[in-house]
């Protein structure tokens, strides 16, 4: 059994605002100090895949990235946390989620995966389309917002987040799952000896052009991109001590609360 994790190489979502800019020519995000990593939700997908395969003899996790040559350093991080294989589908340009999905799906259909996992959204495009598009392009079912996968009685059971809780859904055959975070699937840290071992492991390199699916593209034309001016002038509440500051804040809040029916209920409840 082979499980693929579709890792998206994205601009570091935690990059400081002062380092974030847009390329005026392309409208694409850029940065003074380029820092790219795998999407945080893809790392969660990897963790779910690793936990799933830990319980099945012979099961293998293959981490796959569509990205530039530099992405292989990140792929080694996946090997360091015990992914069995790593594949880089090499692309020269930054890709939209549509293109990432098309390239990945084109390659994945030549493989024998039973599950493809990826994060439920992509942090650079703010889009949740990669997983659903891969499912559509492969013609496989999609199970979304998965937090855990198990094998039960020869079938695969996915625990997925729904509303305010979770449900289990059983499925046969190959499928695509998008992963979300939950207690218990925080990405694991690599051990030093595994980091060393990962440096010696091979990374399979594939040309993206060989696997670009003949879909129509995302059908959008980018006119421009801009950074909205959202910085506000913050009124700092000063005071001799915390109590004085708190009283001034309460003075701001109380008039607002007068319009809230919930306030009277809650204040009565605690008094």
């Amino acid at each position: 059994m082979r499980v693929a994790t579709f890792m998206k190489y994205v601009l570091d979502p935690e990059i400081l605002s002062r380092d974030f800019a847009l390329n005026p020519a392309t409208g694409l995000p850029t940065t003074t100090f380029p820092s790219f990593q795998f999407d945080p939700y893809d790392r969660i997908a990897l963790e779910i895949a690793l936990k799933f395969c830990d319980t099945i003899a012979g099961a293998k996790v293959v981490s796959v990235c569509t990205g530039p040559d530099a992405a292989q350093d990140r792929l080694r991080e996946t090997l360091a946390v015990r992914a069995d294989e790593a594949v880089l589908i090499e692309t020269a340009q930054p890709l939209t989620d549509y293109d990432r999905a098309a390239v990945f799906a084109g390659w994945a259909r030549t493989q024998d995966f039973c599950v493809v996992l990826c994060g439920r959204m992509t942090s650079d495009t703010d889009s949740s389309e990669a997983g659903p598009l891969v499912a559509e392009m492969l013609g496989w079912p999609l199970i979304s917002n998965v937090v855990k996968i198990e094998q039960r009685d020869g079938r695969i059971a996915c625990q997925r987040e729904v509303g305010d809780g979770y449900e289990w859904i059983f499925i046969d055959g190959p499928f695509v799952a998008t992963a979300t975070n939950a207690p218990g699937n925080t990405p694991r840290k690599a051990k030093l000896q595994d980091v060393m071992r990962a440096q010696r492991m091979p990374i399979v390199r594939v040309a993206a052009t060989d696997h670009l699916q003949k879909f129509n593209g995302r059908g959008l034309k980018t006119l421009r991109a801009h950074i909205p001016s959202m910085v506000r002038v913050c009124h700092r509440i000063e005071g001799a001590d915390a109590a004085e500051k708190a009283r001034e804040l309460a003075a701001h809040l109380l008039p607002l609360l007068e319009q809230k029916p919930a306030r009277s209920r809650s204040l009565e409840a605690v008094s």
Partner: protein
Amino acid sequence: MKAALLIPPSVTDAEAALGEVMAAAQRLAADVELIVLHFDRAAATALAATAGVARAATLANPLDAMLASYSDNLVAAALAACGDADVVLIPAGPGADDLAPRLAVRLGAAFVGNCVEIGEEGGVITFGRSICGGRAIETVTSERPKTVVTLSRKRFAPAKGSAATCVMRIIDTSAVTFVQPQLGERESAAGNTARRLTQSSIVVSGGRGLGTADGFNIVNELAETLGAAVGASRAAVDAGWAPHSIQVGQTGKVIAPDVYIAIGISGAPQHVAGIAGAKLVIAINSDEQAPIFQWAHLGIVDDYRTVVAELINALRNGSSVEAA
């Protein structure tokens, strides 16, 4: 231009969502039809009436919760319902995320995800979509005859149509093959907390700056005093101090309360992206350099324990003075 306003079964506040989608449709000056896949005729008519929609459609056999839990069924039903629309508008959320990109592929349509604004330039409709955790807005146009759009919640002020009556269309899905998913046990993670979070007018959130999981005790107490919902930053959730169901931010719930109080939250971009629609942001943090102060309207730099304890006292005293 024909616009289908598609409300997925996962939307828990259908009236509010429809109002927002109506507002977007009015920017397109479109002839609108409400599509609900999981309501019967009476419920769909009632929903249409809340927004003054003149035309609505539902399935001859509406999807039950079991069928709707399998996204492939939603895609098949939506395809049957929205085939003749030029634009399909869907409120963003977990259900839309699964459905919209796949529907776009099947319709041969362009897909605009996370749309935050709709405009027009030289007779061409433009869509503004949030990228990079809300740090930037990408303005795009569709290159296809059809476009599927997911609308970021709380970014379009709800609007109503003027129709007094609604013409209902019943969609025959006898030719559609639905899959009966095999579901196991269900469990509730946090009662109705997440729903309260998206619908409450006041939200109090805690972050890593609380120091420990116990810090949420005083956050909860303040929320109770205010009649507010409780949220958490991703850092607090990742630390295991709060459940994911109450995570606020781009990777959690996107909210737009009247008052948002951030306690011990640094203000990472992905968190701020989730509160962009909040009317009044109040930050309490001991780090005066915390980025949250660039986003807040009001700020207090001090130890949160003392400030929040005093704030609770002041609110209770203020309340009792008024009551007297």
